[in-house]
């Protein structure tokens, strides 16, 4: 168990390798109840969210989910989040480590009337079932719902093992899977029930360690490492969630400038030899620093050390070779190739 964002969380149940491979080949079950849930409702909810986040919430249908970031006026990322549209409002899912700051930020942006925020984080638990066998495992446990008919980034209310849940076809691993939001009193039974049923399919409980290697292979940014208040979404390679033409929103001017002239480039690196790149290590070209690694680990499904990080624009084009330090000894560097993200794509 390790402390994480004020929660005690399992780094691993068995081993990171075994849990990583279970998710890629069969399925893994994560308890990610630390994530924060904030309900946004009222007649002004859409206009409020459109101003708060960079992606276009106006295009979101009931039953859909949207990945986005919210930014300060200077374009710095306050957090990345999911927005779910429900018949009677929206639910934002935010990072645990950012929960308090997010809430304060979201309250500060509230109009005088017409929008209600309700923090449901304490009573809401979140389980993530991820991997190619997720549908096969969860299908028989979902009362009356046709889970296979829920498209990626869609959700619907339902029951799993009799427990009322929001069933969302989303995840943070690069695999097919479902995220289940439920009342905290029902979470332990739900976790155990899914695990018991899934065991014959090779389902393993999975911890933070595998979550990190899986999301890194899938190229997903981690708040606090890859994206921070000091970084804007354009530099972070998240331009696709910034919709400059949707109307005014927090950070729009700064992000328009960043789009015209990016401050940094976000790149993927694959080590050519042995070694594991680590966060905060320099990225070098011809011995000169051109940037810094923000996430680095071993990609079990890639079979190499992999990393993401920022470099000066134009300094590390795709396919080029750079170096990263591999030991405390600065002379010991490993060659790495600049590659496209994600590192891993699930077979289709």
């Amino acid at each position, binding site marked *: 168990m390790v402390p994480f964002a004020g929660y005690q969380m399992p780094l691993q149940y068995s*081993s990171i390798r075994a849990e990583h491979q279970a998710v890629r080949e069969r399925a893994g079950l994560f308890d990610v109840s630390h994530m924060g849930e904030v309900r946004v409702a009222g007649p002004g909810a859409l206009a409020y969210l459109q101003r708060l986040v960079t992606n276009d919430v106006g295009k979101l249908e009931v039953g859909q989910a949207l990945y986005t970031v919210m930014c300060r006026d200077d374009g710095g990322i306050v957090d990345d989040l999911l927005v779910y549209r429900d018949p009677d409002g929206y639910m934002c899912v935010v990072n645990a480590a950012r929960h308090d700051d997010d809430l304060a930020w979201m309250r500060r942006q509230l109009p005088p009337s017409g929008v209600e925020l309700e923090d449901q984080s304490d009573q809401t638990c979140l389980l993530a079932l991820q991997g190619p066998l997720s549908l096969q495992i969860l299908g028989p446990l979902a009362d009356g719902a046709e889970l296979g008919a829920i498209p990626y980034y869609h959700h619907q209310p339902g029951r799993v093992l009799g427990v009322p849940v929001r069933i969302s076809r989303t995840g943070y691993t690069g695999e097919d899977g479902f995220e289940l939001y439920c009342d905290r009193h029902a979470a332990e039974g739900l976790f155990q029930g899914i695990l018991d049923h899934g065991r014959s399919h090779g389902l393993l409980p999975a911890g933070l360690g595998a979550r990190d290697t899986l999301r890194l292979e899938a190229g997903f940014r981690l708040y606090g490492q890859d994206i921070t208040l000091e970084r804007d979404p354009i530099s972070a390679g998240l331009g696709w969630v910034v919709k400059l033409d949707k109307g005014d929103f927090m950070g729009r001017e700064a992000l328009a400038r960043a789009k015209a002239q990016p401050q940094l480039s976000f790149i993927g690196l694959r080590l050519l030899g*042995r070694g*594991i790149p680590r966060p905060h290590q320099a990225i070098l070209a011809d011995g000169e620093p051109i940037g810094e690694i923000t996430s680095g680990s071993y990609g079990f499904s890639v079979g190499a050390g992999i990393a993401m990080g920022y470099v000066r624009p134009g300094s590390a084009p795709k396919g080029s070779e750079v170096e990263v330090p591999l030991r405390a000894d600065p002379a010991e560097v490993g060659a790495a190739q600049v590659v496209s993200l994600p590192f891993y794509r699930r077979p289709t």
Partner: protein
Amino acid sequence: MSDLSPVRFTRTHEWVRPEGAGEAVIGISDHAQAQLGDVIFLELPAAGAHLAAGQRFGAVESVKAASDLYSPVSGEVVEVNQAAVSAPEVVNQDPEGAGWLLRVRLEGEIPADLLDPQAYDAFAESDSH
């Protein structure tokens, strides 16, 4: 009651087990593999290399961290566990058995200041708190 196991441990979490005929096998302790987590790479000297007691002879790298290895004994490497080099997860699964690292021809005795299993367990316990 005395501990009759001939295995001895360093305070840097390596073990050495005499194998007769002046040879010994070296590895890392179960405590060490548990602390490191999933081992990904082993950096080991080749057969013929010379080890000196207390000196760095390689490294083990896990998802969590890279950690140097220090030799419990002096001697010459006669065999490297290639199975462990190509599939390092055996170091996690069986660190004091199939996950051994090197076989060495001893030069001199196994140092007397190494810890027996009981003393090592006590040391490892206090080390992890």
